[in-house]
Structure formats: structure tokens, C-alpha cells
């Protein structure tokens, strides 16, 4: 695994049932590269929650993943409505997701906290009415 591997995915904001396809694909790639299972799981969960968020809140977006021997970097960009209060959004249990999302098993206010929990570095850059970019890095020990 000497070279930097770059993967890019378009997330369809229309179809909730397909949310998670990008994360599954990244997980498969990491497994092929022989990345340790605990690292793969951290990446998979953080990215999956991010992907779900893009579909629930932002009508989709783009995910760029870079894999190096040292780390996995994920950048999730959307042009959704943005996050008005990032600090509040980071609190466990705080959610602005509509009820129908809750009936699908999400929207419990755990998305961003889970992303933070499973990534080693995370930054959120969001402007209301413009969109949100979430960058996460998981170190490969």
C-alpha cells in the first residue's frame, strides 16, 4: 500500500434505501488492502453515519476518500441547508430529523456524535443555506 488511493462517490439524496452503498464500498476496499479490522470498522461507521446524514438532511452530496499507509481521510460535501448551531448538533440526542426518519431507525441525534467518536480527527465547516463539509480522519496504527 505505497501509493495514495483516492475514491469518490456521489450520494443520491432521493433514495434512503441506498444510503450506505459508498460506505460498504470503502469498507470492501480497505479489507482488500489488508487494513486492520478495528480501523475498518471505525471508518465504516463514521462514514455510514455521514452518508445517512447527507441523505436525511442535505439531499445527497459527494464523498471523497483518501487512503494512505498512515490514515484514511474522508471528506463529505453537500449543498444542503447547513447546520445553524454545530455545537448543539454535536450533542447526543439532539436531532432535527423528521419523524419519518426515526421510523427508519435513524434521527436519534447520534449521527454526528458517532462520527466524532469513531474518527480520530473531525472538522465541520457549515454555512446555513450554502452547505456543509465534514472532514474526518482515522489513523491506521
Amino acid at each position, binding site marked *: 500500500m505505497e501509493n495514495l488511493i483516492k475514491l469518490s462517490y456521489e450520494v443520491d439524496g432521493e433514495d434512503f434505501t441506498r444510503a*450506505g452503498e459508498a460506505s460498504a464500498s470503502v469498507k470492501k476496499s480497505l479489507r482488500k488492502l489488508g487494513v486492520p*479490522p478495528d480501523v475498518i470498522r471505525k471508518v465504516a461507521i463514521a462514514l455510514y453515519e455521514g452518508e445517512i446524514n447527507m441523505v436525511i438532511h442535505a439531499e445527497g452530496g459527494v464523498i471523497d476518500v483518501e487512503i494512505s499507509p498512515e490514515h484514511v481521510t474522508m471528506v463529505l460535501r453537500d449543498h444542503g441547508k447547513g447546520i445553524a448551531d454545530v455545537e448543539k448538533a454535536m450533542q447526543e440526542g439532539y436531532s432535527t430529523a423528521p419523524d419519518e426518519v426515526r421510523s*427508519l431507525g435513524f434521527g436519534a441525534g447520534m449521527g454526528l456524535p458517532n462520527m466524532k467518536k469513531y474518527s480520530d480527527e473531525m472538522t465541520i465547516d457549515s454555512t446555513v443555506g450554502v452547505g456543509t463539509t465534514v472532514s474526518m480522519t482515522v489513523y491506521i496504527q
Partner: protein
Amino acid sequence: MTIQDLKTILEAEVIFGDELMDQEIHTACGSDMMSDVLAFVKDQSVLLTGLVNPQVVRTADMMDIRCIVFVRGKRPDNDIIELAQERDIALMSTGLRMFTACGLLWEKGLRG
């Protein structure tokens, strides 16, 4: 215990995964909220849930969960079954409620 033991204890019907029955399972979790599953489980091998949609299988896949048990007699549709087949995740359905199903497995030594 194995997935086969789980099937016996829960009097469950196997929907997919007859060839996966010998797999060992060590721990389980029960939840209808997938974000809770993603937040709290570590090395779980079984997910018991009353939620029936493709995200249940996708969540299980992310967590390396080997078997999903749908409680309260719920049954997945073909799209969900196909997703599980692609990922080698066993699916079964039990008529038991969540509390009872979890209780029976706990009684037989399975832990969270």
C-alpha cells in the same frame, strides 16, 4: 453458541443462511434504533430488531454482525434478503417480542 442454537432457542424461522448456521456467536444486541447499534456495540455477532428496512442489513454489515433476528414475527422483503445474501448475513424471524427474545438468549448465557 452457534446461529443454529439461536434459531432453536428463539424458535425462529431461517429466512436466509442455512449454510451459515455453524457460525459461533459471542454477543448480541437488541435495538430498533440503528444509530444506537452503531454507537454502543462492540464485536456483536447478532442483532435483534423490530425494524425492517435495508438499513438494518447495512448497519449489520458495518458492524460485522453475522446474523439478524427480526422479532415480533416481522419479515424482510426480497430487497432486504438480497442485501443480506450479498453480505453473507443470516436472517431469521421469531414470533417472540424483543424483551422475551433477549431474555431467553441471556438465560442461555449470551451476553451484550
